[in-house]
């Protein structure tokens, strides 16, 4: 632990905790604009969180402490994972060989508890949502690993900070550019799946039967629901960070500069997500596994490109 650990960690956390909800706002705004509406203010997510925190929770008599564990783990994991991933050119505060696997498995942990807390309500809808969630996650896992392998092969290291290091700029133009592109696409798909976005899920559908992620949190209210939403926002940002770094591997040299670039990138990503959500329709449920397996194959192809 060098002396700069604490300030760097602090910067990371500040960026994460403050800016995460903003992304949701941006996505919402983008969609509204596409739909020709004015839309909610950019800071709407903050207001929602504040309102929820002020409210009182109501719990089904079926639920137990596991019901609370879901949101808690979700937020905790997101914050912890943020310490393992570089924000743009800002290196991760905690970086060591193999931290990328920790990164992946932490989200596995949060999924475990999210689904568990959904099942805790005993509602068949939430059970259904949980089943779909784990299915898609299973099918997405190999894609993530393939992409990470490609990046690791390029970086010759097993730490996220090195994986997303300055060498990417050169790599894009190099022979590995194609596989980098494929990897980017795959990671984008994974981002959309993991954050339950169109075309894989519809965050603001109004029919429980069609929901995947949203249906799992039907019973949350007040502070716990605030945690759920906040966790979702953090997750989007944490999972988006590598993508941003991939797409604009710029090193300005100064912390402030790097942070700025990163934030800009995140906002662009949010806009992109918004655009996708606006222009695409939601896939039929049975199609989603096929798409995910397709992405896995893409990632595999990217891997083949780099190891030969």
């Amino acid at each position, binding site marked *: 632990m060098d002396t700069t650990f604490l300030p760097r960690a602090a910067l990371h956390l500040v960026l994460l905790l403050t800016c995460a909800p903003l992304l949701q706002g941006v996505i919402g705004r983008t969609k509204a604009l596409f739909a020709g509406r004015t839309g909610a203010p950019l800071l709407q997510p903050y207001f929602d969180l504040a309102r929820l925190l002020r409210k009182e*929770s*109501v*719990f*089904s008599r*079926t639920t*137990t402490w*596991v019901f*609370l564990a879901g949101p*808690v783990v979700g937020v*905790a*994991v997101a*914050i*912890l994972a943020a*310490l393992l991933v570089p924000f743009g050119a800002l290196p991760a505060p*905690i970086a*060591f*060989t*193999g*931290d990328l*696997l*920790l990164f992946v*498995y*932490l989200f*596995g942990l949060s*999924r*475990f508890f999210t*689904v*568990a807390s959904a*099942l*805790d*309500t*005993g*509602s*068949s809808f939430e*059970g*259904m949502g*949980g*089943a*779909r969630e*784990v*299915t898609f*996650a*299973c*099918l*997405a*896992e*190999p894609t993530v*690993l393939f992409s990470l*392998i490609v990046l*690791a092969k390029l970086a*010759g290291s*097993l730490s996220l900070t090195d994986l997303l290091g300055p060498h990417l700029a050169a790599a894009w133009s190099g022979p590995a550019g194609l596989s980098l592109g494929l990897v980017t696409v795959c990671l984008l798909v994974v981002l959309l799946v993991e954050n339950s976005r169109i075309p894989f899920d519809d965050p603001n559908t109004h029919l*429980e039967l069609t929901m995947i992620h949203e249906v799992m949190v*039907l019973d949350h209210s*007040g*502070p716990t629901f605030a945690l759920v939403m906040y966790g979702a926002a953090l997750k989007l940002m944490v999972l988006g960070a590598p993508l941003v770094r991939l797409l604009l591997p710029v090193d300005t040299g100064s912390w402030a500069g790097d942070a700025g670039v990163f934030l800009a990138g995140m906002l662009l990503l949010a806009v992109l997500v918004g655009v996708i959500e606006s222009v695409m329709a939601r896939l039929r449920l049975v199609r989603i*596994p096929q798409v995910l397996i397709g992405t*896995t194959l893409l990632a*595999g192809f990217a891997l083949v490109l780099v*190891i030969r």
Partner: protein
Amino acid sequence: MGWFVAGVLLTAISGVPGFFTTRHGRSGERLACLLVLTGVASAAASVMVTLGAGSPVVLNAPWAVPGGELALRLDPLAALFILPLCLVVGAGSIYGLGYWPQADHPGNGRRFRLFYGLLAASMLLVLAADNSLLFLFAWEVMAVAAFFLVTTEQERAEARRAGFIYLVSAHAGALALFAMFVVLARETGSLHFPTAATLTGGSATLVFLLGLFGFGVKAGLMPLHIWLPPAHAAAPSHASALLSGIVLKTGIYGLLRLTSFFAVIPPWWGWTVLALGIVSGIFGVALALAQHDLKRLLAYHSVENIGIIAIGLGLALLGRSFALPALVLLGTSGALLHVVNHGLFKSLLFFSAGSVVHATGSREIDHYGGLLRRQPWTAVCFLSGAVAICGLPPFNGFVSEWLIYLAAFDVFQGESLTLRLAVLAAPALALIGGLAVACFVKVFGIAFLGEPRTPQAAAVDHDAAPSLRGPMLTLLLACAWIGLLPGTVAPLLQKATTCWAPTVKLASLGGALAPLPLVGAVGWVLLIYLAGLGWWLHRRTRNAPRDVSTWGCGYAAPTVRMQYTASSFADFLVGQFRFGLRTERHGGQIAGIFPPPATFSSHTPDAVLDRALLPGFRQVAHGCSWLRARVQNGLIPTYLLYVALTLVALLIMVAH
């Protein structure tokens, strides 16, 4: 070493005194438990001393049988298997006091404890044996003892069938090992185990194939896993824990020991083990996902975990073939650590499953529900076990899988292009992990959360008794310890790897190669976060109203039958594996506007046993009886004809 032998003997005879006590008295079982505890304690102590000593402790005494020799050898590799064995056996014997008390099982309790002790002792012997004959001796005793544990409730047809399948497959494996050790002896000229990395034999291929079969059957590598699910389901839970947690590992130990003998490892060995591992891992967990019987499900997860271990072992073997020390170190230590971990958390899971079965009297997951309120301790233990077996931080499962991942990534250090294909182990592991999460969320959610699905689940009134709770918590602590302080086991893994591959120059584990302490540290941070947030949320929602019913999308009168069931939870995911599983679905078709009551059930038979082996054997047996009816046709003239023909044949033979 004297302590070790004493421990073995004590454990072996632990069940005997019980036969001289009254049929219902508790003294016998208490004495047995005490003997087992002292036995494993002394064995463990001697192993600890060995590890401290550094150089392996050996014992060579004469044994008056042809080729026999009482040769024992305790080295770190064996120690790594013996220590969890001692822990699980000890915990199991305490658990048995509450789970299988003599008072409730006057018929088979004493027999059970006799063979429990025998099994433990023979396994200790297997792990310490340094002579083929002694090894086989202990190996077979182990198999037979385990058979009697499986058929403890031999009045149940299911148990008998399981026992038969187990006994047959165990014996088939043992016969292969007979042949293997004999060929080995032909190479080395003696039945004493050769020293590591010395063997350069002509018939290495034969030895490896025989060994792979013999040990693979015991370890339950797909497609040799046939005996595993029925046996684990039929045995009493602490026997299942022993079977799944430790007995399987003797197969892995055998493979490790065997491969350690050879100076050069052909690449195809590594590839074979790796492929088998991947197949076992993926299909094991997929089959597990499709099960509704709690213990069968756990058994299939053993197949999966053996697969993970095999992946690590395969990578290590490749590392030796291609001379990559880092790969050897990571693969071996990953595999070994996973051996230990699986021993711990699988036993934990079986113990808690036993507590559930004990309380509800059913093994069907769909008969449970809402048990968390009724059995909080059991629920916590099962939950931690589940998190651990899914390889999620901060528990021990993650550490070992993490090491194996690192090994998989490490293949890029090698020059060979074919070797790099081994990196595919990583995505496979990821898939396995994902499926495992799905499966255990299912089990935990359906069994412990929601509302009780059946009257007997609702009627559960007691949590695990202290004699059950103690062992479970011990194992839980062990899991957490390895998960949060992985650095502490690194030296042991290092030593074990060294005595598996003494010729390879190894870096130090836990350094830059695999910073175990940091992993532990992150685990601690996670715990702190969880504690903080959880505390806050608890404070914030302490007096929130808890008397409303779950939101049923406007439906006012939901019943417990409406809850998502285990099969429906798994259905969507299992559907993706239909090509390999061939789940049988019965009913469930509804028609009309006002459909009549309909039932739906799905059942996933074992791909190898139920679909291939049993029908095949039926055919063969039929052919045999046909032939017998022809040859042994009961007519004296025919019989005399045989005599004449034999005579003629022999005359012709001797004429040349």
